[in-house]
């Protein structure tokens, strides 16, 4: 697997970056050999993206030096990095939705004719040539907002190749891919290294590291813990390097004791913001005391499905029944009062009011009821007491309950949301990407909470793009593709390969 000839193509020495009030990145050394794939491993929040943004010129380090191809460089902006042959494919794509593929690829390094006239024909041709050369199928004239996620990633890679990147940084590239697509990506990565491109590949997924990397750098709390060789490492050893303690990779849970069906979804159709049908006849059933995991690549209707379920989006046809009662097109508040808890995908935008205190956030779903208010007048004492109680119960780390929710770490924000949602009597829990972006400790906590709910007889709908999470938590698994459930199966029958095929639309 090791292709490199030992020539160092990028070196970072003593990189330090301080952020006000948060973790400092301390004294990081990094070496990248020509033609190798170096994985950078760390849990969410460990500082991987920060480090890469420094190497790409988006951030400036407080201390340290960067050497590219033997020359010391000062990267003041991405321009400098691009000029030096560094290309980056970001985790959140940096693509202008309303423009075409070609326009996005050439942006910033456009081909111009006289009087600043854009030469889009040349741009289209170049994109076509590059996509053929590297096997990245893409139509230069298609508009980004019409493209599925996997294709958008290919556009990002072509962007880097167009600029003759010799060093390619990929930030969590497999987050939005099926296992099969991930394998295709790894193939492309290997081909690139054969042509002399050196790759840094950021991830928090242990399996991938072992699959594709030549070496692994492990980051913990933004410090470089060490370099490992995948040939000699195991998932367990890497996990322990990542977290610094013994990690239990499998979630502990007892056998499920499912009861009667609680949620019945019959053939619903839901439209998205652009009035296209995103959910095209979806049916599902969940019983009390079981966790149904819904796996799927982003963009297959999950968002619209969850919003329809929680009263946030109209159902065009079909029905939803909770515990025998028809709740189709109930308002959000009615759904909440019927006993549905919702952990939303975007905790900062939908789950919390960042500017409110923790206590105020805790009553977002109950402020209008006793004891928090009477006859329309709020009872501040009760609200604060409730806040204190829940903060203790759910171990929310904060210096004061009057602190704003925005000041909490990601894991603690999620704890506030979970605490709030579980403080009402519930029959169904809808958890949408509940551990995205969280550190290992918080992930463990959230998983425990979900299992606890399940064990007390609640029905749980878990929607997640992380296959590992689906596989470790679910009692039954469903795969969503193109707005429909492709297949449902008990957990014993589910495997990465099988789910991956279904997620991509193939028959398993």
């Amino acid at each position: 697997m090791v292709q490199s000839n030992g020539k160092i193509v990028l070196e970072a020495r003593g990189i330090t970056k301080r952020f006000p009030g948060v973790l400092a990145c301390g004294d990081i050394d990094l070496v990248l050999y020509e033609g190798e794939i170096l994985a950078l491993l760390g849990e969410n929040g460990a500082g991987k993206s920060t480090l890469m943004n420094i190497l790409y010129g988006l951030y400036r380090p407080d201390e340290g030096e960067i050497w590219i191809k033997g020359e010391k460089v000062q990267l003041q902006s991405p321009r400098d990095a691009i000029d030096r042959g560094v290309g980056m494919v970001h985790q959140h794509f940096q693509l202008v939705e309303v423009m075409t593929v070609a326009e996005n690829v050439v942006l910033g390094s456009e081909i111009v004719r006289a009087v600043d006239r854009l030469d889009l024909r040349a741009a289209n041709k170049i994109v076509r040539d590059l996509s053929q050369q590297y096997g990245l199928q893409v139509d230069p004239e298609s508009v980004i907002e019409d493209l599925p996620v996997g294709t958008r990633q290919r556009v990002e890679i072509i962007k880097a190749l167009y600029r003759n990147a010799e060093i390619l940084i990929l930030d969590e590239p497999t987050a939005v891919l099926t296992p099969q697509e991930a394998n295709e990506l790894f193939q492309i990565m290997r081909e690139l290294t054969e042509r002399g491109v050196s790759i840094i590949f950021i991830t928090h997924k242990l399996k991938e590291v072992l699959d594709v990397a030549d070496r692994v750098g492990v980051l913990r709390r933004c410090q470089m813990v060490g370099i490992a060789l995948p040939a000699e490492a195991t998932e367990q050893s890497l996990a322990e390097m990542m977290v610094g303690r013994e990690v239990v990779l499998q979630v502990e849970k007892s056998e499920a004791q499912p009861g009667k069906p609680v949620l019945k979804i019959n053939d619903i159709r839901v439209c998205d913001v652009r009035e296209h049908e995103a959910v095209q006849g979806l049916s599902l059933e969940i019983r009390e005391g079981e966790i149904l995991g819904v796996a799927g690549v982003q963009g297959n209707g999950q968002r619209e499905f969850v919003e329809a379920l929680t009263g946030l989006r109209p159902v065009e046809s079909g029905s939803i029944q909770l515990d025998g009662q028809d709740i189709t097109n109930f308002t959000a508040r009615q759904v909440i009062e019927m006993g549905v808890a919702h952990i939303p995908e975007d905790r900062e935008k939908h789950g919390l009011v960042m500017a409110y205190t923790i206590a105020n956030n805790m009553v977002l779903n109950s402020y209008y009821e006793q004891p928090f208010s009477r006859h329309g007048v709020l009872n501040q004492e009760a609200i604060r007491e409730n806040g204190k109680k829940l903060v203790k119960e759910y171990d929310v780390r904060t210096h004061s309950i009057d602190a704003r929710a925005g000041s909490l770490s990601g894991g603690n924000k999620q704890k506030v949301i979970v605490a709030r949602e579980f403080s009402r009597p519930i029959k169904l829990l809808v958890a949408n990407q509940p551990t995205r972006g969280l550190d290992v400790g918080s992930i463990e906590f959230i998983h425990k909470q979900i299992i606890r709910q399940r064990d007390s007889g609640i029905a749980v709908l878990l929607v997640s793009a992380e296959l590992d999470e689906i596989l470790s938590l679910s009692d039954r698994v469903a795969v969503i593709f193109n707005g429909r459930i492709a297949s449902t199966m008990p957990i014993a029958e589910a495997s990465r390969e099988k789910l991956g095929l279904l997620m991509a639309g193939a028959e398993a």
Partner: protein
Amino acid sequence: MEATASEPVTKRIWGRVGYGGTLLIIAIIAILVFYFIDSLQTEAVLASAIRQSTPLILGALCGLLGERTGVINIGIEGQMLSGAFVGFLVSVYTGNLVLAIFAGVLTGMLLGTFLALMSVTLKMDQIIGGTVINILAIGLTGFFYVGGLSTEGKLRAIPIPFLSDLPIVGKTFFNWPPLTYLAIILVFVMHYVLFYTRWGLRTRSVGEHPRAADTVGINVFAMRYINVTLAGGFAGLAGAFLTLEAVGSFERGMTNGRGFVALAVMIFGRWTPLGAWGAALLFGLALALTTQFQFMGINIPHQFTGMFPYVLTIVVVALTGLFGHFRPPAAVGQPYETEG
């Protein structure tokens, strides 16, 4: 869900033309019909329409250039008023109309830079920033106003030979003073720049996804400063038009809300120069018709005709909200933060 090139033809034509385009076509047919009924009145109405539409199209160009690059400008009114005032003063004290036009444009640009300062560097709420410009303009023009001044006359019409003798089109399009011509030329220039040049591509990217632009090496702050300053120039030109070409003198508050109506024109024109021109012409036509009704002796109290542009604006803004998927640039109104 990839876009296919083989959409039905009707759908594609509608995508290009839309509600606004249809209205324009209907209006043109109606004009032709009326011309045959009463050519003199039709020509008068059309002339009035063009005159009304000129400050609107310039204001809309100001607004859309700013919004395309991500900055909301509700200070168009103040920029227009200031441009009108300074242009007027310069023409009074120097007698040189060309110098006065430049002065007006420059004033608009100066206020544009101020808006950029507030929005980009100070990261103020952009609507408050625009309000500051409006209040400041009223204050400054009122403070320095000296009554009873008049210019050496205003800019005169320049008929284009041969073309101005054509029926309908001749008097409507080819017999105007210079700034009116300039406004129309600017529409086409801006459309070309925005959609066919590198500068335009970068400008639009900054308004849609500034971080993406930043990551490919485009200087978001510089783009916004330059574009918003240039945009201010359009508003200043609109003001200069009012005092130097349309009216010939300055009155306090003479812009009378045109800067805000221009925002509706911009929205209705889908943030494109050609679209805004069509919208401005439609607005101008509607306004011209109401004054025409007064001449025709239809008895409407003057306050109601005075209200008409504002009511029309509200109706347009409400309807575009309902019926169009009219979407401003995605990042408009949000200050850009570089991290690290």
